[in-house]
């Protein structure tokens, strides 16, 4: 490193040279395997609900997602999911289980502040952005598609 004094301009550059480079390929393989396995487990649940509980192929998504969310919330409570998250990165964050994990962990983290101001207020602290962006995008696209279908 050159002996330039640090200022606001070169700080970001200098900071980057000290950060460890993430093992890109290894992280992607881990994410692929864990994310894939979660989806295979989801497929297993879907097939189970179709065969044993008489759900139609479309409706079987609902109990599957609910089951995955329940398991993920429990795993977060036991502290297992966070360990999985450290190993798998996006592999555990991208499936719907990661959504449930962000809700449960945010609520657990603020438990000491009480039930109302801690748990209930912070429930959507991390997952709120997902819902906000999802609703805004779906609303705008829905209006566009509806207008499109009226014109043509």
């Amino acid at each position, binding site marked *: 490193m050159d002996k330039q004094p640090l200022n606001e301009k070169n700080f970001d550059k200098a900071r980057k040279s000290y950060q460890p480079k993430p093992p890109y390929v290894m992280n992607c393989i881990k994410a692929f395997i864990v994310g*894939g396995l979660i989806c295979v487990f989801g497929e297993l649940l879907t097939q189970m609900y179709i065969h044993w509980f008489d759900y139609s192929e479309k409706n079987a998504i609902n109990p599957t997602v609910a089951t995955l969310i329940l398991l993920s919330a429990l795993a977060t409570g036991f502290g297992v999911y*966070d360990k999985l998250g450290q190993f798998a990165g996006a592999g555990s964050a991208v499936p719907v289980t990661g959504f449930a994990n962000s*809700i449960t962990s945010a609520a657990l983290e603020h438990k000491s502040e009480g039930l109302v101001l801690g748990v209930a207020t912070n*429930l959507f602290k991390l997952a709120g952005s997902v819902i906000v962006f999802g609703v805004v995008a779906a609303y705008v696209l829905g209006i566009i598609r509806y207008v499109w279908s009226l014109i043509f």
Partner: protein
Amino acid sequence: MTFLWAFIVGGSICVIGQILLDVFKLTPAHVMSSFVVAGAVLDAFDLYDNLIEFAGAGATVPITSFGHSLLHGAMEQADEHGFIGVAVGIFELTSAGIASAILFGFIVAVIFKPKG
């Protein structure tokens, strides 16, 4: 065979997320938000349904399917009720996921003690 495609497609979506995290240095919240928007955009062009038919849970379990379900419910109601239907139906298909996430998240947070 569906299981293999579920593994491959679901895993690939997670790899895209991992690349966004590592290479583009996005936070997990940014990645999840982008994926939801991506799912809604894919559904707007009727592409996501093909992916679900092809990969099953490989397409329904990742968070992209949340955006797809939001738009899908909105469009179903829009056909019946017009403009207000978009607002009426937006949570129609995702309510199971959101309600169970709130319920189970709350119960677990009340029962368990924070770790670490």
